[in-house]
């Protein structure tokens, strides 16, 4: 097969399939569409039965929905992956060093590399974390780095998710689904496994336990509950790690420790992998109406008796305004140039830049500094004149709330449709784990794909799907 669109397609060129896809392309040519359509339906039934669903926020019926799964894998060569993973590792170390600095000596502010007001005016900055070092010095135990590609060697980091990145269950379930549907492919194509992730996660969490902890650390996953959009992932990870899945009301402070209510009384826990946002973590310290957290947990944390992963306050490192300083942050802490490129970013807080952005809205993507999920953003080239005019008003009212980026010519990977293969834009979220023992990155990650033709929005809440991501053995 050959490519048909103007964007860089990771599978097909004008001369046929690119190298990493050669074997897959040959296999695909032997398949018939009816069988693949049937497989696709089987995959959907499997996801539904397993309950791999999510709830969409803001929808009244709170129905569970599936994230569509596309059966064409996204394939990355070992060489491409080596560079990506080195770049991610470098970033994760830099983010962790940045957080430790921001919450302690603030040298990067004093050196004038990052403006002080960016931290001082940042809602994600938590004064409660000042002059405190989390167990093992680790802030970001789990990081999901969003990466996009525009050409054979052009990878860009779009976002560093250092709070509670989600999606790893899809990475694992997508592989499981592919293994069940197309076992023959894995016989002829050597793909690096991802199945060690839960084991590695548990190890990283245990290795980050407070130093006072004796014996094997007791780890739990803290979820906001079954109505949370990522609840499946929370229960999946707890299940795969073999640890308890708790909610705030299962926990309380007992003798200066956090303990969970078991059938036989309260049992002390050492490490909480929390999937509850900072704001809701401790009603005594943060949002007083929160029912999702544990009253008093921040005191226990500061006393060194519990590890919270990721640490509270990591959000200062991953908002989109800080993002624009990432290359400098990496240089400052590692002394190296950033291995992975940033997307050029215009800070609307700067008056000259704001003018440029307003003049060029039709060509730019404008995002809220603290936004996520693809909400509250403007995709200039896809917007109507009215949408652009409306957005300009919002932008002028609060310039520092926005950044703008050029529209990237995102790479495509084909998806399977009734009419055969069709190119769609993708991104990639690899997952990195950090503990005092170092950084480990699962080969691959979650590939999200914008299923609508021409769309650049890959978010599952807005019509995005997922693909299995293969990193080939050398």
């Amino acid at each position, binding site marked *: 097969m050959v490519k048909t669109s103007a964007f860089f397609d990771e599978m097909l060129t004008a001369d046929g399939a690119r190298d990493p896809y050669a074997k897959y392309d040959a296999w695909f040519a032997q398949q018939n569409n009816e069988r693949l359509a049937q497989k696709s339906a089987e995959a959907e039934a499997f996801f539904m039965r*397993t309950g791999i669903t999510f709830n969409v926020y803001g929808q009244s019926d709170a129905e569970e929905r599936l994230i569509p799964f596309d059966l064409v894998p996204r394939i990355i060569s070992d060489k491409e992956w080596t560079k990506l993973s080195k770049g991610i590792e470098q970033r994760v170390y830099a983010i962790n060093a940045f957080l430790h600095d921001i919450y302690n000596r603030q040298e990067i502010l004093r050196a004038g590399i990052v403006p002080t007001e960016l931290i001082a005016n940042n809602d994600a900055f938590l004064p409660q974390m000042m002059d405190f070092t989390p167990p093992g010095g680790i802030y970001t135990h789990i990081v999901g780095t969003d990466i996009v590609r525009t050409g054979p060697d052009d990878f860009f980091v779009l976002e560093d998710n250092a709070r509670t990145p989600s999606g790893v269950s899809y990475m694992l379930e997508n592989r499981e689904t592919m293994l069940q549907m197309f076992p023959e492919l894995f016989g002829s194509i050597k793909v690096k496994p991802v199945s060690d992730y839960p084991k590695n996660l548990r190890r990283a969490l245990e290795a980050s336990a407070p130093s006072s902890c004796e014996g094997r650390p007791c780890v739990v996953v803290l979820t906001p509950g079954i109505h949370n959009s990522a609840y499946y992932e929370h*229960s999946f990870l707890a299940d795969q790690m073999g640890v308890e899945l708790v909610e705030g009301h299962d926990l309380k402070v007992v003798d200066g420790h956090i303990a969970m209510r078991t059938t036989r009384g309260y049992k002390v826990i050492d490490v909480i992998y929390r999937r509850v946002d900072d704001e809701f973590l401790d009603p005594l310290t943060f949002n007083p109406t929160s029912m999702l957290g544990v009253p008093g947990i921040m005191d226990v944390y500061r006393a060194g008796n519990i590890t919270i992963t990721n640490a509270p306050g990591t959000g200062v490192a991953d908002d989109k305004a800080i993002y624009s300083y990432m290359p400098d942050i990496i240089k400052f802490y590692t002394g190296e140039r950033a291995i992975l490129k940033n997307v050029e970013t215009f800070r609307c807080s700067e008056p000259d830049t704001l003018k440029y952005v307003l003049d060029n809205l039709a060509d730019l993507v404008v995002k809220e500094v603290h936004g996520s999920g693809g909400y509250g953003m403007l995709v200039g080239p896809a917007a109507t004149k009215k949408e652009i005019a409306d957005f300009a008003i919002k932008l002028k009212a609060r310039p520092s709330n926005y950044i703008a980026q050029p529209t990237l010519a995102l790479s495509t990977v084909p998806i399977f449709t009734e009419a055969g293969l069709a190119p769609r834009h993708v991104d990639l979220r690899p997952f990195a784990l950090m503990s005092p023992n170092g950084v480990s990155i699962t080969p691959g990650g979650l590939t999200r794909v914008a299923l609508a033709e021409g769309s650049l929005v890959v978010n599952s809440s807005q019509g995005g799907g997922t693909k299995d991501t293969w990193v080939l053995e050398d």
Partner: protein
Amino acid sequence: MLGKTAGGLYWMFRYLERAENTARLIEAGFRIALTRSDDAEAEWKSVIVTLASNTKYKTKRKSYDSTQVVDFLLRDETNSGSVLSMVKAARNNARLTRTALTSEVWYAVNDTWMALKDLLKDPIPETELPAVLATIRQQSALVRGALVGTMLRNDMYHFCRLGTALERMDNTARIIDVKYYALLPSPAFVGSKMDNVQWETLLRSVSAHRAFRWAVDDDFAAPAIAKFLVLDGRMPRSLAFCAGEITKNLGHLADNYGERLGSNDQADALQALFKGRDIASIFEEGLHQFVNRVIADTSQLAGQIERDFRFIG
């Protein structure tokens, strides 16, 4: 194991059992409606009363005709006691306790929910009712089978079984309570049309009309049926059987945890109500009073179990 998880397993199986029993009651009521249309309204009302739903029913529906009652009991989402609501609640509890369930049990519960959500999305015409009720029973059996066939016999399993036994005890007691007058050995009823219908309905409500014939080898007669439903330890829905199951599972938990709790003593006391009793002495005490005591004690025991195992904080 988390107290919440234990509670989630226990409630998941209480809801499933109640959904299944509701389907049985509908089946028995439907049979009367078909065969003896004069008695239908009274019979449907007694089904609603048995399920302790009458107050709510009266605010929602105008009459006790088949269509209304069946709709209310099967698919009314504003009725927390409808089969659909209970299967949803059971499935929510399964989601809550997923780390404690085998994948087979999860699939069985989730399949049940998906199947019933689809089956009950529109009002059920009478012609479809038998098939729908059959599906409910079938799915329920599937979940139970997955549980028995795949779960480790540890505390998780015992909490599931405990939920089933306790709910069933309560359900059977309520069924007897609503119809206790038909079971009294009163000469006025003997041979009348009324008692035969009521007896048959009673037995059908607990799916035991064939078992009764196998086990008792007797014509339908009030004391024999009462004895069968209350005291027969071979009948898996009799009060004595359920009391035995409750005691047994609480006993396993005490063994697992190396400690006897208040609920063990209460369960023993409940079981003692049936030990060495004959039906004549229960009639002497008053069947109505006896069954009411069973209902009250079962409810008290449920509260004790909740506290003993810290289901809620």
